[in-house]
């Protein structure tokens, strides 16, 4: 150890000697770069800290109905009917489990519409064999653009199930087709690798019931199902994933949903309702023309367009996040799968940002233009670049003596120390108010991963974000992300 430290010190001294002449010249530039990187990261941290405080305030003050029986008692006879839209592309591995789980949901009025978006695997055949699908007709107003529908099918023994078989057109296209066929006043967009908790629909509909005139969209929490035991489509044993990569994502999801979305929801600037589990008022989405088919960030774009439309037309509205309803989703367990997902997310974020850039710092859109769009500019556009620049340049400047150790420490504080603090803060909030993970050991493991995600995982994500941005600039447009799926663990 001592020898290694000596070698490092020697190397540092030699490097400094090598750059002795250049270092003073580079010093002002190094300080400017350090200041810029620290400023961008600092603003991001301040925003995250505000989100954390807001989320804590909401969670402590709210009157959540914890027991499902009390929830049923209070809201059971006023719930709103809901159509569950499940777009599926090559999901033969999980589709049967997912549909079975949805049909078993504890909710009195719902229909499940699975949209097979021209899958090249056995997705449709499996559904046909399992549910004995028969051709059916369902009247609908063809008011949204979508690829041709090859057929609509019903399951004689499951009147709640409708399967649409259509030509491939992408997730947004499939959702548009499902949206037209839906008959209920609310619809939920879902992923075909996700499971809903039994009472999640009653919980997510609660804001619509309480404020029916204004609430247009509600997002629920998405959690990783990897490692959990699943029986008849319901999570029966909550466990952490075995894969470390999935564990890192568990922590990432806790931070993103509990802190980010709850905080923004409180300020009325929530711009993301997860594609895996979001409920919308159908009429409002039809009024804005449904999903846009030219972006892979269709969920983010839809919500932002909804905000924009309401603000431009002066309609009183709310887009809300509620932490209790949970959708369990499979997160990628391979670096390749995760990379594909993150590249798609980044492209989607940038596509949406470019479509709606006029909202940025535009007083017409109030807080939304300044806070939400400003935050998106920082996180999606400037943040990854600035942070990566910091990782490359600042240690170099410090090594050659062009940057003071104080500045280097400030950079480390901004990226690592505050990063770990925010992750731990989100985890503490989860533990104090939701207590989803039942064992102390799980909490300890998550604490370790809250620290670890800031060393390596965060940096790799940054690189993927930059790669995603590059793909976007080169005009790459994707459709469905190809992420390997596996059957749920029984």
């Amino acid at each position: 150890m001592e020898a290694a430290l000596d070698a490092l010190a020697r190397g540092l001294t030699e490097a400094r000697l090598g750059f002795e002449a250049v270092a003073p010249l580079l010093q002002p530039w190094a300080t400017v770069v350090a200041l810029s990187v620290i400023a961008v990261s600092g603003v991001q941290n301040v925003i995250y800290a505000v989100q954390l405080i807001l989320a804590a305030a909401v969670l402590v003050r709210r009157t959540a109905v914890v027991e499902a029986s009390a929830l049923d008692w209070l809201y059971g006879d006023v719930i709103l009917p809901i159509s569950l839209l499940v777009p599926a592309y090559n999901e033969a591995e999980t589709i049967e489990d997912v549909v079975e789980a949805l049909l078993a949901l504890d909710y009195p009025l719902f229909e499940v519409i699975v949209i097979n978006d021209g899958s090249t695997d056995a997705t449709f055949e499996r559904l046909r064999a399992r549910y004995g699908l028969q051709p059916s007709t369902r009247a609908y107003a063809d008011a949204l653009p979508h690829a041709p529908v090859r057929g609509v099918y019903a399951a004689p023994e499951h009147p709640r199930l409708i399967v649409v078989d259509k030509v491939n057109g992408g997730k947004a296209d499939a959702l548009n087709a499902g949206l037209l066929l839906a008959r209920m006043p609310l619809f939920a967009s879902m992923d075909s690798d996700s499971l809903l908790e039994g009472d999640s629909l009653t919980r997510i509909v609660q804001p619509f019931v309480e404020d029916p005139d204004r609430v247009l969209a509600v997002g629920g929490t998405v959690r990783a199902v990897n490692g959990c035991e699943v029986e008849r489509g319901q999570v029966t044993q909550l466990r952490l994933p075995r894969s470390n990569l999935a564990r890192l994502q568990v922590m990432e999801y806790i931070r993103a949903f509990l802190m980010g979305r709850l905080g923004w929801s409180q300020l009325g600037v929530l711009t993301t309702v997860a594609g895996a589990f979001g409920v919308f008022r159908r009429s409002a989405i039809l009024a804005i023309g449904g999903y846009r088919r030219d972006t892979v960030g269709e969920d983010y774009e839809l919500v932002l367009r909804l905000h924009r439309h309401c603000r431009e037309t002066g309609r009183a509205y709310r887009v809300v996040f509620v932490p209790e309803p949970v959708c369990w989703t499979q997160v990628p367990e391979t670096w390749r799968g995760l990379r594909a997902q993150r590249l798609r997310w980044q492209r989607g974020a940038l596509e949406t940002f470019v479509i709606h850039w006029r909202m940025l710092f535009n007083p017409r859109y109030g807080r939304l233009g300044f806070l939400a769009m400003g935050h998106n500019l920082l996180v999606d556009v400037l943040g990854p670049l600035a942070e990566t620049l910091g990782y490359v340049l600042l240690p170099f400047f410090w090594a050659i003596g062009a940057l003071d150790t104080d500045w280097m420490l400030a950079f480390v504080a901004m990226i690592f120390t505050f990063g770990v603090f925010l992750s731990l803060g989100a985890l503490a909030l989860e533990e104090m108010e939701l207590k989803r993970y039942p064992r102390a050991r799980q909490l300890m493991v998550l604490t370790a991963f809250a620290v670890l995600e800031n060393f390596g995982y965060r940096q790799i994500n940054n690189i993927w974000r930059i790669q995603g941005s590059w793909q976007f600039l080169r005009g790459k447009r994707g459709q469905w992300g190809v992420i390997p799926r596996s059957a749920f663990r029984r």
Partner: protein
Amino acid sequence: MSAPLSLWLISLAFLAAAFGLLAVLIALRLLEGIRLGRRLHLADRHRYLIHRAMRADLPRGHLRLHVAPMRAFSKALAQDPGDTPGLLNVAYSYTRGDIARNFRRGRPRRRLRYMHVMAHFPARNVRGVLRRAMVRERDPRLRLAAAKALGDMGALPGLHRTLRLLRTEGAAFQRVLRSVLRRLPANRRPEVMRALAEARCPHVRLICVDVLGQSGDRSVIPSLIRASRDADLEVRAGAVRAIGRLGDLGGSRAVLAALADPAWEVRCQACFAAGRLRLVRALPALEMLLHDRNWWVRFRAAEALYGIGGDARAGLRDLAAQPNAAGRVAQAVLLERDAA
């Protein structure tokens, strides 16, 4: 100390605080695990005692604690085996100390849980606790839960008083409020009909329409007919739907008039009502509505024609051959309904 260095030190302080908090939470979780183990052990023991009590060989020391409520239970059971509220009240009388104490001390979510429990105990003092909660609770959810519990007992204080106590103005919580007020006893119905005629606020009128529509009482039809001419479109739509739901032909003229309403929402509900009432007199109007500019009105009109059956359905089949919007919707409804 330089600014960058102070940033570093501040971040370390934050980090230490977060680690400290997590350490406390983990320790609490470990303690909770131990306590839970003990509680489970106690629960097992409790179950064992109940089991022995049922076999009448309870240990002497537990007599006072367990036998008194059981005697009261068996007495109430002997008096009237079907008297569930009476039995529940006996149970409540032995636990009310705990419930009242926890109700006062608990966080809002716990109070809500107790209100749910209290809904099963129609004792006078429970009503008092719930009425006080209707007045005092800050959160409208809790006030509504208290009102709902009272409604379940048939002890809601009347429309105007309930509305005043609940203080839920505007559109928020109206749906829950309506479900609460559906529990108003039948003898309060004249008050609701008066409110429907006199209330200035459209939300109150909408509540009244809903309460009357759900009552199943056909004597409320004249009030609903008057409401079908209301200035507020939601009240009109609600009234027409309620007439359809009650299925009384006495409201048919109001339904016929509503088929020509300027608001598509009202026309839609009128189509539904015409179908439910099998209003043959509405056939010309329904056929006209197959050409309405709103798809939902066209669709509901076609559904109503199919529902009326006979000549109406035959006419719908003829229309289905036409190459226009009416033909398309007629065709779609026929395909869908015939298949079903």
